[in-house]
């Protein structure tokens, strides 16, 4: 068994051994695991900052954290969760692992660049953490000028450079996916036989390559303004800080779709598999991903309603914002129609997607409130906004990520986790999440502004409720880490296709071999052909 051919026939986890073989790997599956470990660490760090925020807000007085420290804590919570957890979460882990397998390829088109993207992520993360230990950052994750460029005396330059560097890891991932999808599909794998997860990854990759460079140059300009006195946004010499907001949101609004589109792709897979039905309206779901990616680029000005942006531009942005709801609704309706008269099995992934749909619905509809220009004047910078984007980014993005992780965990690791624990964790997270963030809608509508460490006593009831919910949420997330790690040690061996799902990834062993396929697959069937799908290999109750 010493020759190379047989090494490639072994599980990707086993051969070759050693830390160096992981840190220098070109295998997309191992890189996905490296990413999974890193983003989990950052999720824990960002979560710790969130816990500090919630602990401070239990009482109306700003007694636990000073206002300076509070500013730094919510900034780092935002920066870490967005740039180091949510944006790479699904694409760099599940996408990296599954995309080549789903299209029948041995690897991504550029394996070395894929590894490079992880190293760039690690370097960017290190630079940002250096900013944390060097006094922190207090600008909010949005780095708005002129505060970030002129007033703040914290490590803005370092943090901005960290974000700049990390941007390139996201660009490289997106670029790799696009080339892979165009050039590496197996024979017979036409565009309309691709799993919808792959379509969603494609749309996400478009946003990554078209938007990320703009935010990269924007934060670089802020860094240059601080370090080199090159004034681009400096009002003192005639610059316009609103230009920063335009350039920033040109990326950062579509970035929300980087977080939610892959989760939608996961849900499309899971809905079909868990109700054992062909997805309803395949091409509508596929094209709605592209529509969300494209329309998502035309709406950034709804973050600028209360800046000095022209009211006419605001009007147009407001109207286009309403249009994003159409493709999102198409997806939600199609998932519902897929489940209608389906044989729904209550496995733990099912719990996560039901959670996703409920929370995403609330998050999406409250987005319409905020997109309406008049109402937004009242709601700008209140907790209503905070609640809205947590419903999308945590309720949508993280629920989708965890759903996908539970669904593909047996494939990725070759081990089954405890099903009951999975269901309990999903319920804890769902109820904990609602308890945390629903009160924030109310308190925000009542006028509680975000980003303050003290607040009037009449808001205390809602804030205590919110902090109590956060405890549940924290227990739920910790539980997941524990039972998933436990499954690695003691979990039963996973069969090749535990859910009886369709798709190329379920036709190969769990965990896959290094080269994914022993011989080149030839695809002859449509996606989601559940009439001819194999029965689940673990009992469906």
């Amino acid at each position, binding site marked *: 068994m010493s020759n190379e051919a047989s090494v490639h026939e072994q599980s990707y986890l086993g051969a070759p051994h050693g830390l160096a073989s992981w840190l220098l790997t070109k295998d997309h599956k191992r890189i996905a695991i490296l990413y999974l470990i890193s983003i989990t660490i950052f999720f824990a760090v960002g979560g710790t900052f969130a816990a500090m925020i919630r602990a401070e807000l239990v009482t109306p007085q700003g007694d636990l954290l000073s206002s300076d420290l509070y500013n730094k804590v919510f900034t780092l919570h935002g920066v870490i969760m967005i740039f180091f957890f949510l944006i790479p979460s699904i694409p760099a882990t599940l996408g990296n692992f599954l995309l080549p397998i789903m299209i029948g390829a041995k690897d991504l088109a550029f394996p070395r660049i894929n590894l490079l993207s992880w190293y760039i992520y690690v370097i960017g993360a290190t630079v940002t953490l250096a900013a944390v230990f060097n006094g922190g950052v207090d600008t909010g994750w949005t780095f708005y000028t002129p505060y970030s460029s002129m007033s703040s005396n914290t490590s803005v330059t370092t943090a901005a450079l960290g974000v700049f560097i990390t941007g390139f890891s996201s660009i490289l991932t997106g670029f790799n996916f696009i080339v892979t999808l165009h050039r590496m599909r197996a024979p017979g794998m036409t565009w309309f036989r691709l799993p919808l997860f792959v379509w969603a990854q494609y749309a996400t990759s478009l946003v990554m390559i078209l938007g990320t460079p703009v935010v990269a140059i924007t934060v670089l300009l802020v860094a240059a303004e601080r370090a080199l006195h090159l004034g*681009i946004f400096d009002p003192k*010499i005639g610059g316009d800080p609103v230009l920063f907001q335009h*350039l920033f949101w040109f990326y950062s609004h579509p970035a929300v779709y980087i977080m939610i589109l892959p989760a939608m792709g996961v849900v499309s897979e899971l809905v079909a598999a868990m109700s054992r039905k062909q997805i309803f309206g395949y091409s509508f779901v596929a094209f709605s991903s592209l529509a969300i990616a494209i329309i998502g680029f035309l709406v950034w000005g709804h973050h600028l309603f209360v800046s000095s942006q022209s009211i006419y531009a605001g009007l147009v942005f407001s109207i286009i914002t309403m249009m994003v709801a159409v493709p999102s609704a198409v997806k939600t309706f199609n998932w519902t129609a897929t489940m209608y008269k389906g044989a729904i099995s209550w496995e733990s992934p099912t719990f996560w997607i039901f959670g996703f749909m409920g929370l995403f619905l609330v998050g999406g509809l409250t987005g319409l409130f905020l997109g309406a220009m008049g109402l937004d004047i009242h709601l700008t910078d209140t907790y209503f906004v905070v609640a809205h984007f947590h419903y999308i980014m945590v309720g949508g993005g993280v629920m989708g990520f965890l759903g996908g992780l539970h669904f593909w965990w047996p494939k990725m690791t070759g081990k089954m986790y405890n099903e009951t624990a999975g269901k309990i964790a999903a319920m804890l997270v769902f109820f904990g999440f609602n308890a945390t963030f629903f009160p924030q809608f109310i308190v925000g509508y009542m006028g509680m502004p975000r980003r303050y460490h003290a607040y009037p006593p009449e808001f205390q009831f809602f804030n205590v409720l919110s902090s109590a919910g956060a405890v549940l949420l924290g227990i739920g997330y910790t539980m997941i880490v524990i039972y998933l790690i436990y499954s690695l040690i003691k979990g039963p061996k996973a069969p090749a296709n535990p859910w009886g799902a369709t798709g190329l990834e379920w036709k190969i062993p769990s965990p896959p071999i290094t080269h994914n396929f022993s011989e080149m697959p030839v695809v002859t069937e449509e996606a989601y052909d559940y009439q001819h799908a194999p029965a689940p290999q673990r009992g469906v109750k």
Partner: protein
Amino acid sequence: MSTPTTTRHPKLQEHFYNMDQQLEASTLGMWVFLVTEVMFFGGLFMAYIVYRHMYPHAWVEASHELNWQLGGLNTMVLIVSSLTMALAVRAAMLSEKKQQVFYLLTTMALGTVFLVVKFFEYKAKFEHHLVPGPHFNPALEQGMQIFFSLYFMMTGIHAAHMVIGLGIMTYIVINAAKGTYNAEYYGPVEVAGLYWHFVDIVWIFLFPLLYLLGRHGA
């Protein structure tokens, strides 16, 4: 290494099925990367448009301060280097080793000339107090400092791309001298060429927008 790859080209990576797929993937990859580069410079051009709209007069005045002769010279230098780069790619496709190396070295020499000229331009700006910041000439009109901030960002990032390009070319020319590239395997030369031409195109836009703006009023 007893894999059954007797018919595979030694430069074919194992996850590709054949050389055509590998070549197509690498050129498409470079094009997608160039799209990100377009957007990267795009942010700067956006700032340029906004501030030119706000300060049309200061823009013309500031443009007078740039040396259009040197800018024009650099434009010529880059166009010639694009030609030699295109010829280098063609030489690689035709398996002409000596020509490849010659054209690649010429391209690199021209790139270096560009950077040297740029260096002297920057030096003059320091001497004339046109570098934004505390030493910027305070007598100049509102908006001119933004022009020079953008001038240094745009040309500075462009020059950084040239330096990276020279690094890539060094790698390519060493391999070309070893006879790595030929009609069957010339992807890296072509991809490096695409990058070089793109950097040239950016300059083609920077030259009239920065240097020639104020010439008719002079």
